[in-house]
């Protein structure tokens, strides 16, 4: 499939994107920057900004790059609401200013942080102690002002004009905030008048760490992005690298990856559903949904050696083939998952409390969801049938029969039910894969990509050298800039990789589905009750590791 990579002048960037938007490129995937100061190929300017947009038929994406003579560029938040946080991130990490951005402040790093960590000149281990908590009051006041809940006084301060508001922090350390996410709300009684969110509490420097590890060393880091479904992150990353190398996996490896991807999807959805039902007070469901997850863990630990952080994929294949008897055990596990799903649905499907608490709560319509760059089950819940497995199939997904589950309203109910539906579809796919699992090797045979056999390492000098060089120097990826993605459990998970030809990526940017979903969250909960905000957050399945990276 051909995707476009174009370079435009900074002055034209806004109009180019706007024209593309008019042509139907109405989905913003990601924005990032590249610091070229240490890149071996010479470039005219030190910094470039990169925009990735997708066409509304979801088949084609365009990567637009612009070199910056000065560290400034026009904002595109007037076209895409999803650009708001993405631009803030570029500002935060690279110090590039977006002219006319409504709220240009840091997003991942602390407000006191000095410097821009993704610049090549920032030393990776230079930590900074930080003390002051951001009060978010200016952002909140602007939000309230725009909703005409407060009035600005002549002296520049603000006052409540018609409501008696109470301000409350949800998080950053709160059991219902699903990880370390902070939402600051203005309450009128129990109703949220305005909300603003602060993230970055789990910003662990994934992207910077990628710059001093080899491609295969990054695989364990990808596990820890979305730790509820580690293998799907592995696959998204190594697939991007393999695409850059131009290698094709054997049929067997592709089929196993499909099977593991779907198993991860199940794994992720059950934990999301278990948690959201606990938020609603339905603890029984937690046991029904979480116990099958334990069974998946047992299966995966036998296969990969680890319960949660599996690190099973390698560039060019995977660590091992399936073990004998895997298929039977997989069948048992699937049965248990189905049992858990059935029992849970029996409890909630016709339950009045469940319906009242979830229907028409935390609504986002299709248009807003697209504009905010939401993906995956959250987008499909709003009625948009975008699924990369159907729209841009890979690994032979076109061969398998399954349906894309879509909702209609985009409320908590739809997001929960879409996930239930997807579990069934994933099981269908797994069945089909296991019925026709091709024979063959799981790793490609290319001495410059995959490790030699242990026998060769121990008995031949070539084998030993090969192992040594590959381990120390890493897989050499040809010099290029590439965006690759898959339909991971939470939506489109993509990696934009800049390679300089060495065994270590020059730059890696993750297109994280949770990040953009979270940026849409504050507005989704405005106008609803405080307790509904908790359910909305849970149903979006925000995974802090992937959002903050």
């Amino acid at each position: 499939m051909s995707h476009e990579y174009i370079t435009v002048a900074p002055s034209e960037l806004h109009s180019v994107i706007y024209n593309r938007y008019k042509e139907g490129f109405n989905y913003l995937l990601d924005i990032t920057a590249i610091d070229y100061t240490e890149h071996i190929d010479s470039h005219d300017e030190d910094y470039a900004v990169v925009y990735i947009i997708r066409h509304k038929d979801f088949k084609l994406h365009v990567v637009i790059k612009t070199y910056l003579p000065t560290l400034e560029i026009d904002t595109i938040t007037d076209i895409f609401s999803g650009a708001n946080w993405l631009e803030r991130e570029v500002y935060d990490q690279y110090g590039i200013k977006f002219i006319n951005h409504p709220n240009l402040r840091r997003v991942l790093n602390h407000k006191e942080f000095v410097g821009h960590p993704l610049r090549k000149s920032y030393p990776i281990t230079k930590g900074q102690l930080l003390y002051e908590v951001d009060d978010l009051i200016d952002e909140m006041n602007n939000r309230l002002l725009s909703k005409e809940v407060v009035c600005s006084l002549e002296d520049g301060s603000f006052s409540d004009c018609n409501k008696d508001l109470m301000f409350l922090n949800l998080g950053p350390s709160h059991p219902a905030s699903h990880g370390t996410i902070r939402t600051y709300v203005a309450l009128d009684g129990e109703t949220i008048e305005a909300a603003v969110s602060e993230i970055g509490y789990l910003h662990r420097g994934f992207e910077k760490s990628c710059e001093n590890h080899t491609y295969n060393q990054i695989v364990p880091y990808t596990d820890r992005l979305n730790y509820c479904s580690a293998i799907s992150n592995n696959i998204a990353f190594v697939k991007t690298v393999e695409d850059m190398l131009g290698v094709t996996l054997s049929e067997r490896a592709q089929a196993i990856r499909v099977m593991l991807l779907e198993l991860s999807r199940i794994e992720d959805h059950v934990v999301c559903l278990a948690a959201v039902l606990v938020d609603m007070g339905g603890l029984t469901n937690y046991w029904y949904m979480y116990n099958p997850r334990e069974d998946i863990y047992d299966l995966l630990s036998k296969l990969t050696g680890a319960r949660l952080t599996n690190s099973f994929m390698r560039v060019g294949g995977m660590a091992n083939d399936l073990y004998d008897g895997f298929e039977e055990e997989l069948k048992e596990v699937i049965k248990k998952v189905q049992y858990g799903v059935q029992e849970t649905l029996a409890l909630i499907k016709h339950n009045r409390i469940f319906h009242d608490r979830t229907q028409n709560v935390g609504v986002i319509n299709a248009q807003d969801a697209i504009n905010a760059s939401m993906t995956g089950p959250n987008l499909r819940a709003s009625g948009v049938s975008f699924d990369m497995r159907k729209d841009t199939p890979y690994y032979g997904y076109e061969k398998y029969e399954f349906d894309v589950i879509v909702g209609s309203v985009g409320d908590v109910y739809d997001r929960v039910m879409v996930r239930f539906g997807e579990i069934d579809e994933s099981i269908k796919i797994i069945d089909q894969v296991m019925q026709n699992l091709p024979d063959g090797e799981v790793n490609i045979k290319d001495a410059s990509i995959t490790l030699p056999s242990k026998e060769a390492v121990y008995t031949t000098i070539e084998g030993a050298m090969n192992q040594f060089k590959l381990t120390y120097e890493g897989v050499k990826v040809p010099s290029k800039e590439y965006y690759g993605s898959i339909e991971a459990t939470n939506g489109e998970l993509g990696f934009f990789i800049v390679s300089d030809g060495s065994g270590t990526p020059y730059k890696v940017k993750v297109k994280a589905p949770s990040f953009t979903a979270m940026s849409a969250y504050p507005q989704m909960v405005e106008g609803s009750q405080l307790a509904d905000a908790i359910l909305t957050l849970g149903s979006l399945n925000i995974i802090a590791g992937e959002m903050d990276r």
Partner: protein
Amino acid sequence: MELNNPNLPSDTVIVTKLDEAIGWARESSLWPMIFGTACCAIEFMSVAASKYDISRFGAEVVRFSPRQADLMIVAGTITYKQAPILKQIYDQMSEPKWVVSMGACACSGGFYDNYCTLQGIDEIIPVDMYVGGCPPRPEALLDALLCIQKDLRTNKYNPDRHKDFKGLLDES
């Protein structure tokens, strides 16, 4: 005589040292405050779920309320941005309190040796028990719990044990 001897007749009066009675009471009623931030917190969910079932050890009252808790379990990566919050919550817990550092990240920063990750929570708060692993298996966390309970039972714990602790965020 052992306090938890099930064969005691019902009208027995037990004479013991106050310390021991208190230690015995604490041992079986630890209330964890789980400070879960990342992957390790998912493993904590497993510890709480029925297969590993932390309630077998009387430590299932997870209330997320520092003022009611006496056992802090830090499960996950602590970033510099998060550090003051962790310290504040630790400070809000009333004495006596114990801290379990769960996983490589909480113990040492794990493999996140970079600009945003605190290189171990013992740089800001005192830790009683370190659990290795990335993430540790649920059994490992239960083992840490049992170790703390044993210390409580045998009264090894000394109320002033962290008096000289000075963390990075403490005023010098």
